[in-house]
């Protein structure tokens, strides 16, 4: 009962038309910023933060959240249409979204991405609302050893992205792990592979790498390869919505992806990118249409998209209830809240009940706006494809370079982006998939840090690190996922031999 009272309180805040206006402003700008390569939710929030000065906390919060989930969806638009993820959480969307677009089903892919985002978002708002005040402590039950196990689980999903040649997939993954090793060692302060270059001291961030490997490499390849055609008929609203059969195929994946995304999002430091990686991998493993993945499976678009939106919602749980931001975007948002005189923390839902429940209500509103905008404005987005390839390439190239500079205000990141762009081109020519490299780069650094912290905490007893209850369970799952098929084959063989012997 209390829940509905609180929710009523939240929705009463929405009665103020200005709140709705600001929420709309947030979602629209979020989608646009998210669609620009390299600019993700954190940049969007940081850029529009100055607009929040002087707003009421409810308006400001609704706008910021609008940007957040707007950007999560926006990232998928360019991922699907031009194979350039707008932000890192949309990398997985390119794997099946772009092939779908090439088959002339761009509208279908965008529609699916939008609906999956909204469904993922809506389910996780319900989860957030019912669970946030209760499960805030879940996030803290993960210590270094648990994170280490989770990252190992994440690394097993490389297997799902290798395409035809596992060897090439693993080659890419090891390249990614190598790049993750660059920088000053956290524990001893020893420089690793920095060759005296101070710009490398803090390591190489995965955002410029992803922009290079996906964005720039794609542009270079586009010169040789022609554009996608969009069938006008496919952009009618009816065609955008998935048909019965597609719903049947995707709904279970959306459900699982959402819950997985929400849980991963709640863990500080894991975030939407890892959630989308894991969700895609899970969808691929559990799907009946395994062979379609990578060739344009609708599940392959739905799974990562629902997961990244769910994760962005999940990341709000530790931010609001513990004051521990789980991602760059939530960190900036927390700064904004403190600017407005609200300190997130253990007493947030009690002390600032009105703001807290207003936020929940605005999330519902934001999802409605997202579906209206997503489906209504799709025809506009697809117009991007009408621009001549050469013009488009030049524009995207400019966006990527500006985005790369804006990341750290430094020409060095621009150089990193270009370097990985050229590397990405050669990898493409050699048919080495780029996704495992980015995955390994994202996970590698976190894996190393957490393993070393865990070892220090457990007095360098490796066995003890592996046998924390949560870590042990996760590691067993990881082993089963990685070696499940060979183990199954082994048992089948043993059985057969036994039968033979008898």
């Amino acid at each position, binding site marked *: 009962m209390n829940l509905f009272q609180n929710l009523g309180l939240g929705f009463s805040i929405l009665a103020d038309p200005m709140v709705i206006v600001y929420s709309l402003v947030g979602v629209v700008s979020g989608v*646009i910023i998210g669609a*620009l390569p390299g600019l993700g939710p954190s*940049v969007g929030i*940081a850029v529009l933060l100055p607009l929040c000065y002087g707003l009421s906390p409810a308006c400001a919060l609704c706008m910021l959240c609008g940007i957040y989930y707007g950007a999560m969806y926006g990232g998928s638009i360019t991922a699907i249409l031009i194979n350039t993820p707008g932000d890192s959480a949309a990398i997985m969307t390119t794997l099946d979204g772009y092939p779908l677009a090439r088959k002339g089903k761009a509208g279908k892919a965008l529609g699916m991405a939008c609906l999956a985002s909204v469904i993922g978002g809506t389910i996780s708002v319900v989860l957030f609302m019912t669970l946030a005040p209760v499960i805030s*402590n879940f996030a803290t039950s993960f*210590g270094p050893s648990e994170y280490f196990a989770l990252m190992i689980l994440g690394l097993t999903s490389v297997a799902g992205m290798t395409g035809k040649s596992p060897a090439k997939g693993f080659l890419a993954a090891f390249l990614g792990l190598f790049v993750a090793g660059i920088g000053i060692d956290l524990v001893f302060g020893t*420089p690793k592979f920095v060759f005296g270059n101070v710009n490398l001291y803090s390591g190489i961030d995965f955002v410029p790498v992803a922009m290079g490997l996906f964005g720039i490499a794609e542009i270079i390849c586009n010169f040789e390869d022609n554009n996608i055609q969009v069938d006008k008929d496919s952009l009618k609203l009816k065609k955008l919505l998935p048909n019965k059969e597609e719903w049947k195929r995707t709904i279970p994946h959306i459900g699982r992806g959402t819950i997985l995304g929400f849980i991963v999002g709640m863990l*500080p430091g894991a975030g939407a990118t890892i959630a989308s990686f894991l969700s895609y991998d899970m969808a691929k493993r559990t799907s009946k249409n395994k062979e379609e993945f990578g060739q344009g499976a609708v599940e392959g678009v739905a799974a990562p998209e629902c997961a990244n939106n769910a994760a962005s919602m999940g990341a709000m749980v530790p931010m609001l209830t513990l004051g521990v931001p789980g991602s760059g975007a939530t960190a900036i948002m927390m700064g904004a809240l403190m600017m407005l005189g609200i300190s997130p*923390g253990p007493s947030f839902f009690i002390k600032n009940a009105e703001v807290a429940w207003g936020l929940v209500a605005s999330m519902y509103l934001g999802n409605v706006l997202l579906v209206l905008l997503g489906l209504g404005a799709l025809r506009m987005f697809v117009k991007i494809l009408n621009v001549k390839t050469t013009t488009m390439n030049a524009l995207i190239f400019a966006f990527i370079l500006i985005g790369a500079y804006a990341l750290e205000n430094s020409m060095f990141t621009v150089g990193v982006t270009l370097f990985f762009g050229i590397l990405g081109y050669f990898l493409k020519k050699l048919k080495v998939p780029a996704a495992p490299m980015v995955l390994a780069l994202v996970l590698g650094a976190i894996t190393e840090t957490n393993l070393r912290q865990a070892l220090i905490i457990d007095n360098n007893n490796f066995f003890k690190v592996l046998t924390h209850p949560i870590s042990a369970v996760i590691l067993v799952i990881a082993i089963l996922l990685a070696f499940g098929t060979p183990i199954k084959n082994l048992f089948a063989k043993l059985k057969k031999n036994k039968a033979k012997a008898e």
Partner: protein
Amino acid sequence: MKKLIALLLTALMVLSMAACGSEPAKTTPAATDAPKTTEAQGQTQAQSEAQTTEAAGWVPTKDVEFVIPFGAGGGNDIMVRKMVEIIEKYKLCPVNVVPVNKKGGSGVVGYTYLKDYKAGYEYALASTSASFFTQPITGNSPFNPDTSDFSFVAHLVKDPSVICCSKKWDFKNLDDIVKYAKEHPGELKWGGVGNASDDAILMYTLNTLAGIDLTYVPYDDQGLLTAAVLGGHIDLCSSSLAESIEHMKNGTMSTIAAIADNRLADFPDLPTAVEQGYKLDHQQNRGIVMNPGVKDEVLAYYSGLFQKVTETEDWKVFVKENAMADAFMGYQEWTAYAADVKADYTTYLAMVPKD
């Protein structure tokens, strides 16, 4: 027609992009306003120079760059931007002061950028934090934190911190911790950000002072460290008030001792470590530096400018809100003090094991 719409759309994207690029740094408006302001100020300056030729000394005649060697949104960034805001609000300086973020290498990238201007350059300032001292001493920066590589302009604030402990323990003060640690060597873990940081220095100093064996666990992010202490994976940490005052007030983290010159206004009942008999008073110093060889009259000008900033009510509110301790020093005092700070860091960092 369709092509036109498409072009318009892309143009819109370009425009929004341009807006994205300029807003956070706020450099564009400043740059365009610059000539106007300098001109107008140039006149007043000429007048004032005519009136008090000798007393006025050096005055800037073009925009000043304020290098922030850290990312946007961090403590250093917020502080510098606040100062710039105050300078603009009270028109304390005849030219624009433009903040520039250059992050990377724990500040080294920013100081490299500063040092790309030649020695004696009068229009670039940079803010300092602990890494200004720790990076060179640990051999990760080519610059010495002394007058051979920098001129010292002004010291602004110190950052007091609080030693906190996970709720799974019922330690009440440092004596409890020391007693337990003596009985169980190596068991208690102290989490901190970075490997040769203020957090590490505090723990190794306590180890040396009390003859105990706490283990240091480095984190690369304050948020993750806070989560680890809340979850009981880490037993102890030192944290600034700005970072975890909510947890200290709510009792989700227990407070053990304040690391400050005086008791903290927010926790008047929490004794400082020195009061508890442990000489632990190491705090982060935040100040401003320039290239070496800058003339005294220039240093005196900037030093005076920032003194005016720190005397405003806005600054006092800011310092209080961010739980810092006001500690203004002019250029001469800061130059002498920096030498002491460097010596302190050298002693402290010698306690941090290398491998």
